[in-house]
């Protein structure tokens, strides 16, 4: 399991390859890349700054991954989240999950993202033509996370 919070870019291919290269029992790697967009809520976004709560962030991510591993039969997982200054098309977050079969890998990858969005202490500030603004939390993210509460595995 790898959890990292960093300002530097990450290497998608190297991170995914580390999950299966020496692990011939891995049949499936589901991964998710979150990317800085140039628009949000109808406004142009020129740049973004990501703030976090050092210490609690890593702890929260570790717990989310541990929860995923208790729900599904996973072989490994990696979560890397960037902080600091980002611009449109910059990757923000990578979640990659290795399992023997695809169902577990897909479910756990989406679960980790949904929980990360609602439980890991990161905050986005966007630079728009009207100045800077803190991004508001979305109800749709709460709903996405709530889907998993009474659901131990995929339907």
């Amino acid at each position: 399991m790898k959890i990292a919070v960093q300002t530097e870019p990450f290497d998608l291919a190297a991170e995914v390859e580390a999950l299966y290269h020496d692990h011939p029992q891995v049949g499936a790697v589901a991964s998710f890349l979150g990317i800085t967009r140039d628009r949000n809520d109808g406004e142009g976004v020129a740049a973004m700054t990501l703030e976090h709560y050092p210490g609690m962030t890593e702890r929260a991510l570790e717990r989310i991954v541990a929860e995923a591993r208790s729900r599904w039969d996973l072989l490994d997982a990696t979560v890397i989240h960037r902080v600091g200054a980002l611009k449109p098309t910059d990757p923000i977050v990578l979640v990659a999950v290795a399992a023997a079969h695809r169902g577990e890998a897909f479910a756990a990858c989406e679960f980790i993202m949904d929980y990360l969005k609602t439980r890991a202490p990161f905050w986005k500030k966007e630079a728009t033509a009207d100045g800077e603004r803190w991004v508001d939390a979305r109800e749709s993210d709460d709903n996405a996370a709530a889907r998993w509460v009474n659901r131990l595995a995929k339907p």
Partner: protein
Amino acid sequence: MNVRILYFARLREAFGTSQEAPALPADVATLGDLLDWLRARGGVWAEQLGPGRAYRMAVNQDVAGPEVRLQDGDEVAIFPPVTGG
């Protein structure tokens, strides 16, 4: 009792500080008491932590509710709903 209080994001900017380590009066026993004590400062404190405002709290890096009892040396954090990912 002494605690360290951290503020993040919108709240950090509103309060004009990222942390403080106040000596708390004896009647501040829980996180809820601490919130009352902060609101009693008035101004942005009463406003940002007032009814209807969305914020979250953590004690020693775990999300916590107002019923949680504080202990000397605790790290308390108050922050807006998270928006990472």
